């Protein structure tokens, strides 16, 4: 579409012949450059001639649309579909919990669902003497260590859908109300730290929402409970 009419006076309202596509395109670029150089938010209105020519020239209309996209700044961003941030946030919570954490000694995936005898943690913190009862009772109390003959065991269960989780075992007479686990930060990982006597075998299960019995999937030993289920066994 290139009419060969001679160029007339150009100056806004005085253009006398139809704008050629060639001229139109250079006008488009001038407009675009001025848009690019203008501070964000300051309007550079599309000159009427540009709009009019594009209204009846499909090829130039496409170029105009492209120019408008390229001229778009922060006030004309492509918008995310509704709910995208929500979906992304939810999916991130499905990542393993320790992925972001800096804290050393955090529960590693292999033991996440099981026990973390604090004996190991204590050994790191205060030296292996603690394991062999080398401290006096007073020293132990001052260091916050459990009484001799007991060890503090940390029970952990990942149960994001649970409203409550109880630790139920032979040391608390299988009473579901005795030792609830807690999930203080609401991330679905429930835990409790329980002092247990050494040199004994303990059997236990988790009870979720008062109805679902769950043995500890990572306990080294499981035994039948005589009721058609399975108890986890802890030997310390």
């Amino acid at each position: 579409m290139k009419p060969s009419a001679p160029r007339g006076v150009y100056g806004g309202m005085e253009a006398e012949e139809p704008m050629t596509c060639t001229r139109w395109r250079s006008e488009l670029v001038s407009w675009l450059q001025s848009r690019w150089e203008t501070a964000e938010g300051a309007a550079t209105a599309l000159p009427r001639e540009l709009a009019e020519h594009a209204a009846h020239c499909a090829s130039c209309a496409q170029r105009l649309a492209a120019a408008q996209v390229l001229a778009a700044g922060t006030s004309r961003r492509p918008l995310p579909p509704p709910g995208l941030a929500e979906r992304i946030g939810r999916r991130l919570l499905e990542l393993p919990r320790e992925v972001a954490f800096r804290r050393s000694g955090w529960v590693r995936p292999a033991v996440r669902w099981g026990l973390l005898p604090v004996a190991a943690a204590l050994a790191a913190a205060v030296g292996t003497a603690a394991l062999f009862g080398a401290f006096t009772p007073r020293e132990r109390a001052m260091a916050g260590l459990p009484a001799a003959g007991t060890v503090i065991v940390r029970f952990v269960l990942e149960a994001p859908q649970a409203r409550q989780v109880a630790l139920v075992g032979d040391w608390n007479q299988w009473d579901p109300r005795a030792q609830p686990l807690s999930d203080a930060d609401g991330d679905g990982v429930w835990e409790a730290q329980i002092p247990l006597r050494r040199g004994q075998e303990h059997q236990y299960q988790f009870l979720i929402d008062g109805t679902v019995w769950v043995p500890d999937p990572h306990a080294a030993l499981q035994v039948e409970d005589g009721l058609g289920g399975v108890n986890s066994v802890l030997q310390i």
Partner: protein
Amino acid sequence: MKPQAADDREAVRQTLEGDRQAFRFIVERYTPLLYSLAARLLGPGPEVEDAVQEIFERLYRNLRRYDPARSFHPWMYTIALNHLRSARRRSRRGGPRGATPVDPLLLDARAAPEGAREDPAQRAADAEGERLAARALEGLPARYREVFVLRQMEGLSVAEVAAVLSMPEGTVKTLLHRARQRLAERLTREGWT
């Protein structure tokens, strides 16, 4: 420190302390920015959402390496750009992106950008405009394109672009100027559409 920057660092600090919900604050705040960046660098299409998801996962996994003495914004953009570069390489194997026609119905499913017109014929023209603009950007060398999108379209300051792309500020300005020239040239080229 500007209040927003302080909020970001606080959210990061809390996330690292164990409060994963705190990271959702970052996700809510920055999804629109990262979506816009990804759409502009990758061109319109369904992989833009995936890319944004993957960028946030990278941010989350790398949170340990974020130095709170530095500003969060440029760190985030640096990670985002790295990911978008490799995303582009992966999708390029399927052929040049700008050649894929954008289904106007796909664009209809998104919230309409400001200024988008209601008339279906106009929407089709807008979709075509997006495709051509994406193609024009595709035609730029990578650094020109990144400078143009970050500075011109996403509104980052020259200093910030320089930090994110690890180049002097003078280079940012030069590349921006050249990018504009090349784009303008494209728009006037015969037989381009």
